[in-house]
């Protein structure tokens, strides 16, 4: 039992952190607001760094890594606020040609309930997609994203996550069965929880820096207990959630150590809670400045809301946990 990063894992984390710092500095992220969040050159840089092919065997051009590693990678992507259908393209690698290499941008959506009784589907990044995957009880379906009759939303919650609303989807080609769908739900939830915990940690850093610099009443605001304790609570949420998310990765790699469903439901729940609460707290620490578009604080909490709705929100995961006690 050694539940910390190995040297290799630390090196991987460092590589991804550098990739994000180089390809996705905050100025670049902000510039993507007006470009739909996804930019093909940058997407290919992610692919070239191996972000989408982490799990593929080396013989298929991948890195042959496990979920502990993919969780670490996605944590860094979340921390850097990298937008786009990262999780879906990663899941698609090995099933949809061109996903792993970044030639295609592959998005996805979960479909619930019986045909005819479904509520409208909200599809992210539709305009930027080459393929849309649909996950339902029966399996995974590949849909021509250009054929989707979706209404673009004029004002998406997250400026980096444009969405369309589609009443129905065109029939697609089945690319995987229910077992894969079930496995994707687990892995999708684990990777999304990693993005969320990355966000939750990023805002601790952001808020702490601000609290050290910003002065009010002739003191840095971080010296006030009210602010200090807000920040301490943020740290606690991020650290506790990170432990849960890393454990989810470890369970995916080695199901013998415990109940993988429980580990992942717990991770998604804890990471969602942490990212949502920390995102709000980060704005609160920034005071009025946090309410301006120009300051980045709002982007984190908005992304956290988006990610919470993917692969099971907090409420659904809590219900799932209850059944597993």
């Amino acid at each position, binding site marked *: 039992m050694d539940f910390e990063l190995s040297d290799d894992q630390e090196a991987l984390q460092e590589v991804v952190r550098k990739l994000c710092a180089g390809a996705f500095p905050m100025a670049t992220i902000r510039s993507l607001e007006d470009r739909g969040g996804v930019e093909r050159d940058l997407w290919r840089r992610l692919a070239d760094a191996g972000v989408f092919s982490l799990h593929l065997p080396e013989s298929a051009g991948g890195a042959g890594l496990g979920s502990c590693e993919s969780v670490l990678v996605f944590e860094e992507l979340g921390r850097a606020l990298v937008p786009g259908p990262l999780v879906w393209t990663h899941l698609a690698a090995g099933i949809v040609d061109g996903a792993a290499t970044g030639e295609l941008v592959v998005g996805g959506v979960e479909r619930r309930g019986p045909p005819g009784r479904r509520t409208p589907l909200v599809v992210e990044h539709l305009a930027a997609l080459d393929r849309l995957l649909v996950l339902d009880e029966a399996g995974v379906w590949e849909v021509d994203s250009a054929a989707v009759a979706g209404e673009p939303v004029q004002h998406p919650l997250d400026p980096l996550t444009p*969405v369309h609303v589609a009443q129905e989807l065109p029939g697609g080609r089945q690319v995987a069965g229910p077992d894969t769908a079930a496995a994707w739900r687990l892995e999708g939830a684990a990777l999304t929880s990693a993005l969320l915990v990355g966000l939750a940690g990023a805002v601790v850093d952001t808020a702490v820096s601000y609290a050290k610099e910003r002065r009010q009443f002739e003191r840095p605001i971080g010296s006030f207990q009210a602010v200090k304790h807000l920040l301490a609570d943020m740290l606690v949420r991020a650290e506790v959630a990170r432990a849960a998310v890393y454990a989810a990765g470890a369970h995916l790699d080695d199901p013998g150590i415990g109940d993988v469903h429980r580990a992942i439901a717990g991770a998604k729940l804890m990471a969602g809670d942490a990212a949502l609460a920390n995102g709000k707290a980060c704005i609160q620490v920034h005071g*009025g400045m946090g309410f301006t578009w120009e300051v980045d604080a709002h982007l984190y909490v908005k992304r956290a809301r988006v990610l919470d709705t993917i692969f099971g929100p907090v409420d659904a995961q809590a219900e799932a946990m209850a059944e597993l006690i």
Partner: protein
Amino acid sequence: MNLRYSESEERFRGELREWLDRVLPTVGPPPAIDDWPGRRAYDTAWQRMLFEAGFAGISWPKELGGRGASPAEQLVFLEETERAHAPYVGVNFVGLLHAGPTLIAEATSEQRSRYLSPILRGDEVWCQGFSEPGAGSDLAALRTRAVRDGDDYVVSGQKIWTSHAEVADFCELLVRTDPDAPKHRGISWLIMPMDSSGLEVRPLRTIYGSSEFSEMFLDEVRIPVANRVGAENDGWRVAMVTFSFERGTALVSELLQTMELLESLVEIARSTGTEGARPWDDAGIRRELGHLAADLDALWSLTKRNVTQASRTGVPGVGGSVFKLHYSEVRHRLGDLALRILGRASLSFDDVGGARSGDQVHGWVHAISLSIAAGTSQIQRNILGERVLGLPRER
């Protein structure tokens, strides 16, 4: 302890309701949220209608053109206009509810007769220039400098969070007239014409993505000394008249809207999802909705207590901080619950799938501003702790 409105209060209600029933059908739909000239025209036209019917400045004294209504009648006014979905105070907010009351309390008779009537008539619009980028919670640390030069002050600095600046005629401006005095003692309160040269207004985009507020950049703006309200360097006290009001009852009409927002959310919870799996079928969700209703009802009762206390003592009490703290927290809970109920529909500020989801998403963002604007929740807790509970100040 009586929650029944008096006969005269009910008479006022009847009169107002009758008028609203008659005139509201003649009022068109509000302009788009970013159509500032349109909004000015719409809001001031409504103000003019109120004025002509005798409902303008209902809390203002009669001798200054107001209605001199009691606090209870002011509540009735808010209840009825909200119930009838009448236009909001809109761009007239600062004039009617901040600058106007300050002028009434502190201005010279010349100043009053120049400025008050145009506010009531909807002829002139005011904005507020208090906050600065470096002076948020610590407002008294403001640094916009005013240097006396003959009959003018020459003012330079930067203001933020100015609402309606694009369409305002005047600004209630706080400036530092004595940089050497302790920070609360060197401030003055000025009336700045918005067409002054050296003044630049830039829209400030908020996290809604829209520009409800502006920043103002002042570069040697000349403001006549005659435009000062109150004594030189006494502006902090003058401003506090407005402030206790802001913390007092300014959120009341919002509370009524929040009750509607909750009802709308209940409707969404009852009508979305599939049969047997609607959010409303979930006992936990129902309880959270019920809990919020209890909180809002309690805040409405608290408002009536605050109003009664204000009537009896003549000044708004500390109930304002109590109200604001709890109201902010309730709005955070309501916003978070709404987004959980909406699920994927929460990814859009616009309505999705026929449900009135956009209001809920806007409400979620609004909650974030409530615990910050007009004194963060942290500042409000300090106020209650020190001024009401008498706890020692920090060193």
